[in-house]
Protein backbone atom coordinates (compact mmCIF):
# COMPACT_ATOMS: atom_id res chain seq x y z
CA UNK A 1 0.00 0.00 0.00
CA UNK A 2 1.30 3.47 -0.96
CA UNK A 3 -1.60 5.36 0.65
CA UNK A 4 -2.10 7.65 -2.35
CA UNK A 5 -3.17 5.90 -5.54
CA UNK A 6 -5.52 3.54 -3.70
CA UNK A 7 -7.52 6.60 -2.73
CA UNK A 8 -7.71 7.93 -6.27
CA UNK A 9 -9.18 4.78 -7.83
CA UNK A 10 -11.67 5.85 -10.53
CA UNK A 11 -13.97 2.89 -9.82
CA UNK A 12 -14.27 3.83 -6.18
CA UNK A 13 -14.93 7.43 -7.18
CA UNK A 14 -17.73 6.34 -9.49
CA UNK A 15 -19.29 4.22 -6.81
CA UNK A 16 -19.22 7.04 -4.31
CA UNK A 17 -20.72 9.46 -6.81
CA UNK A 18 -23.60 7.05 -7.41
CA UNK A 19 -24.13 6.84 -3.71
CA UNK A 20 -24.09 10.63 -3.33
CA UNK A 21 -26.56 11.06 -6.17
CA UNK A 22 -28.93 8.61 -4.52
CA UNK A 23 -28.56 10.18 -1.09
CA UNK A 24 -28.99 13.77 -2.19
CA UNK A 25 -32.44 12.88 -3.53
CA UNK A 26 -33.46 12.02 0.00
CA UNK A 27 -32.75 15.60 1.09
CA UNK A 28 -34.49 18.89 0.40
CA UNK A 29 -31.49 20.42 -1.38
CA UNK A 30 -31.91 21.68 -4.92
CA UNK A 31 -29.73 23.26 -7.53
CA UNK A 32 -31.00 26.70 -6.50
CA UNK A 33 -30.75 25.99 -2.83
CA UNK A 34 -27.84 23.60 -2.63
CA UNK A 35 -26.14 21.89 0.26
CA UNK A 36 -23.30 24.28 1.10
CA UNK A 37 -20.30 22.43 2.41
CA UNK A 38 -17.39 24.54 3.54
CA UNK A 39 -14.06 22.86 3.09
CA UNK A 40 -12.02 24.62 5.72
CA UNK A 41 -8.68 23.66 4.30
CA UNK A 42 -7.00 24.98 1.17
CA UNK A 43 -5.67 21.49 0.49
CA UNK A 44 -9.24 20.37 -0.06
CA UNK A 45 -9.90 23.36 -2.32
CA UNK A 46 -6.92 22.36 -4.40
CA UNK A 47 -8.06 18.73 -4.68
CA UNK A 48 -11.63 19.74 -5.57
CA UNK A 49 -10.39 21.68 -8.58
CA UNK A 50 -7.51 19.41 -9.52
CA UNK A 51 -9.77 16.38 -9.81
CA UNK A 52 -12.84 18.33 -10.91
CA UNK A 53 -14.90 17.05 -7.96
CA UNK A 54 -17.09 20.16 -8.09
CA UNK A 55 -18.19 19.16 -11.56
CA UNK A 56 -18.54 15.46 -10.83
CA UNK A 57 -20.85 16.09 -7.90
CA UNK A 58 -24.56 16.73 -8.48
CA UNK A 59 -25.60 20.42 -8.67
CA UNK A 60 -27.35 20.08 -5.32
CA UNK A 61 -23.92 20.11 -3.68
CA UNK A 62 -21.87 23.28 -3.51
CA UNK A 63 -18.44 23.77 -2.00
CA UNK A 64 -17.56 26.96 -0.17
CA UNK A 65 -13.85 27.50 0.08
CA UNK A 66 -12.90 28.35 3.62
CA UNK A 67 -10.18 30.29 5.39
CA UNK A 68 -7.76 27.40 5.94
CA UNK A 69 -4.84 28.64 3.94
CA UNK A 70 -2.31 30.51 6.05
CA UNK A 71 -1.01 32.41 3.06
CA UNK A 72 -4.49 33.62 2.12
CA UNK A 73 -5.20 35.20 5.49
CA UNK A 74 -1.77 36.78 5.69
CA UNK A 75 -2.18 40.57 6.03
CA UNK A 76 -0.21 42.64 3.54
CA UNK A 77 1.56 44.54 6.31
CA UNK A 78 3.15 41.36 7.60
CA UNK A 79 5.01 40.90 4.34
CA UNK A 80 6.35 44.42 4.73
CA UNK A 81 7.66 43.50 8.17
CA UNK A 82 9.30 40.40 6.64
CA UNK A 83 10.96 42.58 4.03
CA UNK A 84 12.16 45.08 6.65
CA UNK A 85 13.85 42.27 8.55
CA UNK A 86 15.29 40.69 5.41
CA UNK A 87 16.91 44.01 4.53
CA UNK A 88 18.70 44.34 7.87
CA UNK A 89 22.47 43.82 7.66
CA UNK A 90 23.73 40.27 8.26
CA UNK A 91 20.28 38.70 8.23
CA UNK A 92 19.41 35.51 6.41
CA UNK A 93 15.62 35.44 6.13
CA UNK A 94 14.10 31.96 5.79
CA UNK A 95 10.61 31.26 4.53
CA UNK A 96 8.50 28.52 3.06
CA UNK A 97 8.13 28.95 -0.69
CA UNK A 98 4.45 29.81 -0.29
CA UNK A 99 5.09 33.27 1.14
CA UNK A 100 7.63 34.29 -1.51
CA UNK A 101 5.15 35.79 -3.96
CA UNK A 102 2.64 37.38 -1.60
CA UNK A 103 2.61 41.12 -2.34
CA UNK A 104 3.21 43.64 0.42
CA UNK A 105 3.27 47.36 -0.19
CA UNK A 106 7.02 47.16 -0.71
CA UNK A 107 6.72 44.27 -3.14
CA UNK A 108 7.20 40.58 -2.45
CA UNK A 109 9.96 38.58 -0.79
CA UNK A 110 10.80 37.16 -4.20
CA UNK A 111 11.34 40.65 -5.58
CA UNK A 112 13.37 41.55 -2.49
CA UNK A 113 15.57 38.49 -3.06
CA UNK A 114 16.03 39.78 -6.59
CA UNK A 115 17.44 43.00 -5.12
CA UNK A 116 20.25 40.96 -3.60
CA UNK A 117 18.99 40.35 -0.07
CA UNK A 118 19.60 36.93 1.44
CA UNK A 119 16.20 35.27 1.47
CA UNK A 120 16.11 31.48 1.41
CA UNK A 121 13.35 29.02 0.74
CA UNK A 122 13.36 26.19 3.24
CA UNK A 123 11.50 22.90 3.21
CA UNK A 124 11.77 22.29 6.94
CA UNK A 125 12.23 24.77 9.82
CA UNK A 126 15.15 22.60 10.90
CA UNK A 127 16.93 23.71 7.71
CA UNK A 128 16.89 27.25 9.15
CA UNK A 129 18.39 25.96 12.37
CA UNK A 130 21.18 24.29 10.43
CA UNK A 131 21.85 27.60 8.70
CA UNK A 132 22.10 29.31 12.10
CA UNK A 133 24.68 26.78 13.27
CA UNK A 134 26.72 27.14 10.11
CA UNK A 135 26.60 30.94 10.02
CA UNK A 136 27.29 32.13 13.58
CA UNK A 137 28.10 35.65 12.32
CA UNK A 138 24.63 35.96 10.71
CA UNK A 139 21.17 36.41 12.21
CA UNK A 140 18.81 33.72 10.93
CA UNK A 141 15.15 34.74 11.00
CA UNK A 142 12.49 32.13 10.30
CA UNK A 143 9.07 33.23 9.08
CA UNK A 144 6.77 30.90 11.00
CA UNK A 145 3.57 30.62 9.04
CA UNK A 146 0.69 28.23 9.36
CA UNK A 147 -2.05 26.69 11.43
CA UNK A 148 -1.64 23.99 14.07
CA UNK A 149 -0.22 21.54 11.54
CA UNK A 150 2.94 23.57 11.09
CA UNK A 151 3.24 24.83 14.67
CA UNK A 152 4.71 21.65 16.24
CA UNK A 153 7.61 21.56 13.79
CA UNK A 154 8.35 25.22 14.40
CA UNK A 155 8.01 24.70 18.16
CA UNK A 156 10.47 21.79 18.18
CA UNK A 157 12.89 23.88 16.17
CA UNK A 158 12.68 26.72 18.71
CA UNK A 159 13.21 24.24 21.54
CA UNK A 160 16.32 22.89 19.85
CA UNK A 161 17.59 26.44 19.35
CA UNK A 162 17.18 27.03 23.08
CA UNK A 163 18.87 23.77 24.03
CA UNK A 164 21.77 24.62 21.76
CA UNK A 165 21.86 28.17 23.15
CA UNK A 166 21.75 29.71 19.70
CA UNK A 167 21.71 33.48 19.91
CA UNK A 168 21.50 34.08 16.17
CA UNK A 169 18.16 32.40 15.54
CA UNK A 170 14.71 33.93 15.86
CA UNK A 171 11.12 33.51 14.70
CA UNK A 172 8.73 35.96 13.09
CA UNK A 173 5.56 34.37 14.38
CA UNK A 174 2.60 34.43 12.02
CA UNK A 175 0.78 31.38 13.27
CA UNK A 176 -2.95 31.22 13.43
CA UNK A 177 -5.21 28.94 15.40
CA UNK A 178 -8.10 27.25 13.62
CA UNK A 179 -10.75 27.08 16.32
CA UNK A 180 -10.99 30.84 17.04
CA UNK A 181 -11.09 31.35 13.27
CA UNK A 182 -14.02 28.96 12.86
CA UNK A 183 -15.79 30.47 15.85
CA UNK A 184 -15.45 33.94 14.35
CA UNK A 185 -16.65 32.67 11.00
CA UNK A 186 -19.77 31.11 12.45
CA UNK A 187 -20.79 34.33 14.17
CA UNK A 188 -20.61 36.39 10.98
CA UNK A 189 -23.95 37.47 9.49
CA UNK A 190 -25.23 35.97 6.22
CA UNK A 191 -23.20 32.81 6.51
CA UNK A 192 -24.80 30.01 4.58
CA UNK A 193 -22.86 26.95 5.59
CA UNK A 194 -24.71 23.69 6.09
CA UNK A 195 -21.77 21.44 6.89
CA UNK A 196 -18.01 21.38 7.27
CA UNK A 197 -15.36 19.23 5.68
CA UNK A 198 -12.82 19.20 8.50
CA UNK A 199 -9.11 19.75 7.78
CA UNK A 200 -7.43 16.35 7.87
CA UNK A 201 -3.85 17.28 8.55
CA UNK A 202 -4.63 19.94 11.08
CA UNK A 203 -6.88 17.50 12.89
CA UNK A 204 -4.11 14.92 13.18
CA UNK A 205 -2.59 17.43 15.62
CA UNK A 206 -5.63 18.71 17.51
CA UNK A 207 -7.94 15.68 17.22
CA UNK A 208 -11.71 15.68 16.73
CA UNK A 209 -12.94 17.11 20.02
CA UNK A 210 -12.28 20.84 19.41
CA UNK A 211 -14.87 20.86 16.60
CA UNK A 212 -17.69 19.63 18.82
CA UNK A 213 -19.04 23.14 19.37
CA UNK A 214 -20.03 23.20 15.70
CA UNK A 215 -22.22 20.13 15.85
CA UNK A 216 -23.51 20.89 19.33
CA UNK A 217 -24.10 24.65 19.18
CA UNK A 218 -24.82 25.10 15.51
CA UNK A 219 -26.30 21.70 14.57
CA UNK A 220 -24.01 21.30 11.59
CA UNK A 221 -22.18 18.14 10.54
CA UNK A 222 -18.40 18.11 10.62
CA UNK A 223 -16.51 15.31 8.88
CA UNK A 224 -12.74 15.33 9.14
CA UNK A 225 -11.55 14.30 5.73
CA UNK A 226 -8.47 13.10 3.93
CA UNK A 227 -7.26 14.83 0.78
CA UNK A 228 -7.68 12.22 -1.92
CA UNK A 229 -10.85 12.11 -4.02
CA UNK A 230 -12.07 8.91 -2.39
CA UNK A 231 -11.64 10.49 1.04
CA UNK A 232 -13.49 13.64 0.15
CA UNK A 233 -16.39 11.91 -1.57
CA UNK A 234 -16.73 9.48 1.26
CA UNK A 235 -16.86 12.46 3.59
CA UNK A 236 -19.67 13.96 1.51
CA UNK A 237 -21.56 10.67 1.88
CA UNK A 238 -21.07 10.88 5.64
CA UNK A 239 -22.31 14.48 5.72
CA UNK A 240 -25.41 13.55 3.70
CA UNK A 241 -26.16 10.65 6.02
CA UNK A 242 -25.96 12.94 9.04
CA UNK A 243 -28.34 15.40 7.41
CA UNK A 244 -30.77 12.66 6.48
CA UNK A 245 -30.71 11.28 9.98
CA UNK A 246 -30.69 14.76 11.48
CA UNK A 247 -27.90 13.69 13.78
CA UNK A 248 -25.09 16.23 13.82
CA UNK A 249 -21.73 14.92 14.87
CA UNK A 250 -18.03 15.36 14.44
CA UNK A 251 -16.95 12.31 12.49
CA UNK A 252 -13.54 11.17 11.40
CA UNK A 253 -13.23 9.80 7.87
CA UNK A 254 -9.41 10.08 7.93
CA UNK A 255 -8.78 7.48 10.59
CA UNK A 256 -5.67 6.14 8.92
CA UNK A 257 -3.95 9.42 9.80
CA UNK A 258 -6.07 11.17 12.42
CA UNK A 259 -6.33 9.69 15.89
CA UNK A 260 -9.42 10.92 17.68
CA UNK A 261 -7.32 12.52 20.42
CA UNK A 262 -4.86 14.03 17.90
CA UNK A 263 -1.12 13.96 18.46
CA UNK A 264 -0.59 14.49 22.18
CA UNK A 265 3.16 15.04 21.87
CA UNK A 266 2.57 17.72 19.29
CA UNK A 267 -0.09 19.39 21.41
CA UNK A 268 2.31 19.42 24.36
CA UNK A 269 5.15 21.01 22.42
CA UNK A 270 2.81 23.69 20.98
CA UNK A 271 1.68 24.48 24.51
CA UNK A 272 5.25 24.80 25.75
CA UNK A 273 6.43 27.15 23.06
CA UNK A 274 3.35 29.14 22.04
CA UNK A 275 0.57 30.90 23.81
CA UNK A 276 -2.78 32.12 22.54
CA UNK A 277 -2.86 35.76 23.40
CA UNK A 278 -4.58 38.86 22.14
CA UNK A 279 -6.52 39.48 18.97
CA UNK A 280 -4.88 39.31 15.59
CA UNK A 281 -5.96 40.81 12.35
CA UNK A 282 -6.32 38.44 9.41
CA UNK A 283 -6.74 39.37 5.84
CA UNK A 284 -10.34 39.17 4.77
CA UNK A 285 -11.47 38.05 8.21
CA UNK A 286 -10.73 41.14 10.24
CA UNK A 287 -9.69 41.01 13.84
CA UNK A 288 -10.34 37.67 15.48
CA UNK A 289 -10.72 37.42 19.19
CA UNK A 290 -8.06 35.31 20.84
CA UNK A 291 -6.48 34.22 17.58
CA UNK A 292 -3.06 35.72 18.19
CA UNK A 293 -0.36 33.12 18.56
CA UNK A 294 2.76 34.36 20.38
CA UNK A 295 5.90 32.77 21.71
CA UNK A 296 5.42 31.92 25.36
CA UNK A 297 7.40 33.79 28.00
CA UNK A 298 10.01 31.09 28.25
CA UNK A 299 10.84 31.42 24.54
CA UNK A 300 10.41 35.17 24.07
CA UNK A 301 14.14 35.62 23.50
CA UNK A 302 13.50 34.03 20.07
CA UNK A 303 10.88 36.58 19.05
CA UNK A 304 12.19 38.38 15.99
CA UNK A 305 9.80 41.28 16.49
CA UNK A 306 11.30 41.98 19.91
CA UNK A 307 14.85 41.32 18.82
CA UNK A 308 14.74 43.67 15.85
CA UNK A 309 12.13 46.06 17.21
CA UNK A 310 10.16 45.82 13.99
CA UNK A 311 7.63 48.26 12.69
CA UNK A 312 4.00 47.23 12.53
CA UNK A 313 2.18 47.95 9.30
CA UNK A 314 -1.53 48.03 8.77
CA UNK A 315 -2.73 48.51 5.21
CA UNK A 316 -6.25 49.10 4.05
CA UNK A 317 -7.34 46.70 1.34
CA UNK A 318 -8.91 48.00 -1.85
CA UNK A 319 -12.54 48.67 -0.91
CA UNK A 320 -13.67 46.86 -4.06
CA UNK A 321 -11.76 43.71 -3.22
CA UNK A 322 -13.99 40.99 -1.89
CA UNK A 323 -11.33 38.74 -0.38
CA UNK A 324 -13.22 38.63 2.89
CA UNK A 325 -16.51 37.67 1.30
CA UNK A 326 -14.81 34.95 -0.70
CA UNK A 327 -13.03 33.63 2.38
CA UNK A 328 -16.22 33.45 4.34
CA UNK A 329 -18.22 31.90 1.56
CA UNK A 330 -20.45 34.93 0.98
CA UNK A 331 -19.15 35.45 -2.53
CA UNK A 332 -17.65 33.37 -5.31
CA UNK A 333 -14.32 34.59 -6.68
CA UNK A 334 -15.87 35.46 -10.04
CA UNK A 335 -18.23 37.90 -8.31
CA UNK A 336 -15.32 40.05 -7.15
CA UNK A 337 -14.86 43.09 -9.41
CA UNK A 338 -11.08 42.65 -9.27
CA UNK A 339 -11.08 38.97 -10.30
CA UNK A 340 -9.30 38.35 -13.57
CA UNK A 341 -8.73 42.09 -14.04
CA UNK A 342 -6.74 43.89 -11.38
CA UNK A 343 -6.18 40.55 -9.69
CA UNK A 344 -4.69 37.67 -11.66
CA UNK A 345 -1.94 35.17 -10.80
CA UNK A 346 0.42 37.37 -12.84
CA UNK A 347 -0.32 40.44 -10.75
CA UNK A 348 -2.15 39.24 -7.69
CA UNK A 349 -3.85 41.83 -5.59
CA UNK A 350 -5.14 39.50 -2.91
CA UNK A 351 -3.44 36.56 -1.28
CA UNK A 352 -6.30 34.31 -2.38
CA UNK A 353 -4.87 34.72 -5.85
CA UNK A 354 -1.27 34.14 -4.79
CA UNK A 355 -1.41 30.89 -2.93
CA UNK A 356 -2.26 28.07 -5.29
CA UNK A 357 -4.57 26.92 -2.51
CA UNK A 358 -6.38 30.22 -2.51
CA UNK A 359 -9.93 30.00 -3.77
CA UNK A 360 -9.33 32.67 -6.40
CA UNK A 361 -6.15 31.13 -7.79
CA UNK A 362 -7.85 27.76 -7.89
CA UNK A 363 -10.82 29.26 -9.73
CA UNK A 364 -8.52 30.98 -12.14
CA UNK A 365 -6.16 28.08 -12.67
CA UNK A 366 -8.75 25.36 -12.97
CA UNK A 367 -11.49 27.19 -14.82
CA UNK A 368 -12.76 25.31 -17.82
CA UNK A 369 -13.30 28.07 -20.30
CA UNK A 370 -12.86 31.70 -20.94
CA UNK A 371 -13.34 34.02 -18.02
CA UNK A 372 -16.94 34.90 -17.54
CA UNK A 373 -16.19 38.46 -16.53
Amino acid sequence: MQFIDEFRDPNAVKLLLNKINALVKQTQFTQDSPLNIMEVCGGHTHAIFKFGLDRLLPPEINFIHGPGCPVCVLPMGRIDTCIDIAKLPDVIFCTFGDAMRVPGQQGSLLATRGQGYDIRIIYSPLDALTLAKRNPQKQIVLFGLGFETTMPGIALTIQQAKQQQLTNFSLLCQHISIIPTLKALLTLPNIKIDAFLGPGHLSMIIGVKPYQFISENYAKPVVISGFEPVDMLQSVVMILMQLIRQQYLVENQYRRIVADQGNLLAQAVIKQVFTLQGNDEWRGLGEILGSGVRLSKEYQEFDAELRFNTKHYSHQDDPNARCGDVLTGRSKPINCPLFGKKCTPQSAYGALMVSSEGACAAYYQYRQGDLIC
Partner: protein
Amino acid sequence: MCIGIPCQIVSIDNHAPNIAIAEVNGIGRQIDISLVANSNNPITVGQWVLVHVGFAMSILDEDEAKHTLSILNAMQEEEPDVSVLFIGKE
Protein backbone atom coordinates in the same frame (compact mmCIF):
# COMPACT_ATOMS: atom_id res chain seq x y z
CA MET B 1 -3.78 23.99 4.17
CA CYS B 2 -0.93 21.70 4.78
CA ILE B 3 0.80 19.38 2.40
CA GLY B 4 1.26 16.10 4.16
CA ILE B 5 2.59 13.12 2.30
CA PRO B 6 2.71 9.47 3.38
CA CYS B 7 6.35 8.37 3.46
CA GLN B 8 7.95 5.10 4.48
CA ILE B 9 10.71 5.02 7.09
CA VAL B 10 13.77 3.48 5.42
CA SER B 11 16.39 4.08 8.09
CA ILE B 12 16.82 5.50 11.56
CA ASP B 13 19.93 7.37 12.65
CA ASN B 14 21.88 5.30 15.20
CA HIS B 15 23.45 8.37 16.77
CA ALA B 16 20.40 10.61 16.79
CA PRO B 17 17.31 8.49 17.47
CA ASN B 18 14.94 11.34 16.56
CA ILE B 19 16.28 11.46 13.02
CA ALA B 20 15.19 9.10 10.26
CA ILE B 21 15.12 8.92 6.50
CA ALA B 22 11.64 8.63 5.02
CA GLU B 23 10.90 7.93 1.39
CA VAL B 24 8.12 8.42 -1.13
CA ASN B 25 8.46 7.17 -4.71
CA GLY B 26 12.20 6.77 -4.26
CA ILE B 27 12.64 10.31 -2.94
CA GLY B 28 14.10 10.35 0.54
CA ARG B 29 14.32 13.15 3.08
CA GLN B 30 15.83 13.39 6.50
CA ILE B 31 12.96 13.91 8.90
CA ASP B 32 12.46 14.41 12.61
CA ILE B 33 10.40 11.65 14.22
CA SER B 34 10.27 12.87 17.81
CA LEU B 35 6.56 13.76 17.56
CA VAL B 36 5.55 10.18 16.77
CA ALA B 37 8.11 8.06 18.56
CA ASN B 38 10.09 7.88 21.78
CA SER B 39 12.01 5.23 23.69
CA ASN B 40 8.77 3.66 24.93
CA ASN B 41 7.15 3.66 21.51
CA PRO B 42 9.96 3.32 19.00
CA ILE B 43 9.27 3.52 15.32
CA THR B 44 10.55 0.78 13.05
CA VAL B 45 11.92 0.73 9.55
CA GLY B 46 9.13 -0.02 7.08
CA GLN B 47 6.45 1.92 8.94
CA TRP B 48 4.64 4.72 7.12
CA VAL B 49 4.39 8.21 8.55
CA LEU B 50 2.73 11.40 7.42
CA VAL B 51 5.40 14.02 6.77
CA HIS B 52 4.82 17.78 6.95
CA VAL B 53 7.69 20.32 6.75
CA GLY B 54 10.26 17.64 7.57
CA PHE B 55 8.51 16.24 10.64
CA ALA B 56 6.65 12.95 11.00
CA MET B 57 3.29 14.04 12.39
CA SER B 58 1.35 10.79 12.46
CA ILE B 59 1.96 7.08 12.02
CA LEU B 60 -0.22 5.66 9.30
CA ASP B 61 -2.62 3.00 10.36
CA GLU B 62 -2.62 0.46 7.57
CA ASP B 63 -5.56 -1.43 9.03
CA GLU B 64 -7.65 1.71 9.03
CA ALA B 65 -6.64 2.43 5.45
CA LYS B 66 -7.64 -1.06 4.38
CA HIS B 67 -10.84 -0.73 6.33
CA THR B 68 -11.77 2.47 4.49
CA LEU B 69 -11.12 0.79 1.16
CA SER B 70 -12.91 -2.41 2.12
CA ILE B 71 -16.09 -0.42 2.74
CA LEU B 72 -15.91 0.70 -0.87
CA ASN B 73 -15.36 -2.82 -2.09
CA ALA B 74 -18.33 -3.94 -0.07
CA MET B 75 -20.42 -1.25 -1.73
CA GLN B 76 -19.50 -2.73 -5.07
CA GLU B 77 -20.42 -6.28 -4.26
CA GLU B 78 -23.53 -5.93 -2.21
CA GLU B 79 -26.53 -3.77 -1.95
CA PRO B 80 -25.12 -0.38 -0.96
CA ASP B 81 -25.11 0.05 2.78
CA VAL B 82 -23.46 3.27 3.76
CA SER B 83 -24.26 2.97 7.41
CA VAL B 84 -21.10 0.92 7.67
CA LEU B 85 -19.19 4.08 6.79
CA PHE B 86 -20.10 5.49 10.12
CA ILE B 87 -18.80 2.77 12.26
CA GLY B 88 -15.14 3.35 12.69
CA LYS B 89 -13.16 0.20 13.23
CA GLU B 90 -13.01 -0.29 16.97
